[in-house]
């Protein structure tokens, strides 16, 4: 459109400029600060000193963080916990979230608007309140234990002290709304005539689901997974609130402890880089799959 006008090139670039400057100042430079801190040193007073000049980089902390994150290493329990908790929560997201999104997109009729509203509500409820709710329910004199003793289970575990199941439940509870909504949006967009065509051509409902609906919902499932996995990998506060025990520490807890708790900011920054490397492996898979889907469904 306005490309016709001679001024348009620099005109629109000017619109983007303030935002781009902002992102450079507060995303790009800080990212470099993490790298500088990870490759930095400590001075004689044990104060961490970042290495701003690449020629003075010290690989010590980074290699300690990476080797420590491998099985058997010092940070491996945290890495393993992260992978297990996030993996379990994601599986449960699929097991619960996909049927819910599928039902609302495909089968709900008169109740569809109501259901969408109900699915959206958790978005507007503070994450901290939703955790607070479970702290109340899971406390030793809370409703969960009351329910358990009512059905004859005495001696229930202490849910709020280093219990991995509680952490997984809390992560699931916290993030599943971010999974369901994009999956619902994706399923809702699937053209019904494609499924009708499959049925007309003799597919059973199950076959039509397996051969048409499921492949077509892959992009939405990938998007939903990315939306929950990325924040879960950096989560530390859910764990702090629900477990408060180093037994269930995730990578985010280690980073938070090093950066805010102690003087070893170099190691904290190095673990941030470990986290980003793990995530970029996942992101590469995501980008690769999305590109493949885009070609296939184009």
């Amino acid at each position, binding site marked *: 459109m306005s*490309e016709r006008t001679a001024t348009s090139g620099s005109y629109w670039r000017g619109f983007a400029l303030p935002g781009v400057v*902002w*992102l450079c100042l*507060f995303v790009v430079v800080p990212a470099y600060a993490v790298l500088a*801190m990870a490759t930095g040193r400590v001075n004689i007073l044990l104060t961490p000193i970042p290495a701003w000049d690449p020629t003075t980089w010290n690989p010590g902390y980074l290699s300690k963080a990476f080797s420590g994150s491998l099985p058997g290493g010092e940070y491996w329990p945290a890495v393993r916990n992260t992978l297990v908790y996030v993996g379990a929560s994601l599986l449960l997201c699929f097991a619960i979230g996909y049927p819910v999104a599928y039902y609302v997109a495909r089968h709900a009729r008169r109740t569809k608007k109501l259901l969408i509203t109900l699915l959206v509500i958790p978005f507007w409820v503070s994450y901290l309140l939703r955790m607070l709710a479970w702290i109340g329910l899971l406390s030793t004199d*809370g409703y969960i234990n009351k329910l358990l003793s009512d059905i004859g289970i005495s001696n229930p575990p202490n849910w709020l002290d280093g219990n991995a199941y509680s952490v997984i439940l809390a992560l699931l509870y916290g993030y599943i709304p971010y999974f369901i909504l994009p999956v619902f949006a994706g399923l809702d967009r699937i053209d019904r005539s494609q499924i009708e065509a499959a049925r007309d051509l003799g597919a059973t409902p199950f076959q039509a689901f397996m051969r048409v609906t499921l492949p077509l919902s892959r992009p939405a499932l990938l998007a939903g997974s*990315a939306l929950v996995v990325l924040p879960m990998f950096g989560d530390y506060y859910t764990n702090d609130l629900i477990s408060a025990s180093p037994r269930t520490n995730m990578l985010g807890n280690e980073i938070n402890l090093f950066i805010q708790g102690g003087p070893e900011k170099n190691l904290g*920054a190095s673990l941030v880089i470990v986290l980003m490397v793990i995530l970029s492996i996942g992101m590469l898979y995501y980008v690769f799959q999305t590109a493949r889907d885009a070609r296939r469904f184009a």
Partner: protein
Amino acid sequence: MKLTPKPLRNPWGKPRFLAVITWLYIVWALVPVLIAMLFSFNNGRSRSVWQGFSIRWWWGDPNLSIFHNPDYTHALVHSLTLAAFDIVIAVPLGVLLALGLARWRGRGSSAANGLMLVPLITPEIVMAVSLLLVFTQLAIVPFTLVHLGTPAQVIGQVTFSLSYVVVIVRARLAVIGGEYEEAARDLGATPVQALRLVLLPLLMPAILASMLIVFALSIDDFVVTQYMSSTSTTTTIPMFLYANARGGTTTPALNALATVLVLTTLLGIAIAYALYAAFGRRASTGDTSMVRELSGLEATA
């Protein structure tokens, strides 16, 4: 299930078990929150055992109820202050960036597009750590001018809010297309006039949705806001909830504070919808366009 061909069932019929799963999920998702809110009316100090109804934690208790405890009221005021700054800075900046990124072709534009997505795919702790390091370690202007506390909190919040605004506005720009502006230009409007008189009113639903999302992001944010905080005067409601959630001495006033947070968000939604009804509808593409814009966020991943 014998070989007799059954008449084709209505393929869109309701499978009962899916309906059951869906409603169970909704009960599971909402009832704990309702219980937690209800406990703000508990007539006792417990946040897990019901001891009768009272409003002591809301108003009755002269020291500990939320409206009599300066810690609580201050956290509420600070949360709202940060949200206001975040909206005022992030929404205009994001709208401009969205317009620029949508139309600027040429060197640097794809890099800028990629850069805009970075905050969306970065876990919050990574952003928080990186901003903390740059503000506390890098002795270069402008970073030395930013002190931890309110200024750093605002910058942190704007940085993660910006991309959401861009995504929402760009989705709307794509729907609007270029024809309206082109028509305005053909009728003699300058580029600035076409933008102000034609495009901006058409973008209004997206701008309102952005304001709402930024408000919700800001008021609910914990990680970045906590990393960027300084003294107790920069404590927000989520920070207060985090610090006191496990405390044995904490009273149901904490539940009341969390309820206030939710009510504030609901008020924000109500205001946004009222504004939307007042002057957004003319420009909208349909009744559900606000919902569409919000669910358009899904395209971000």
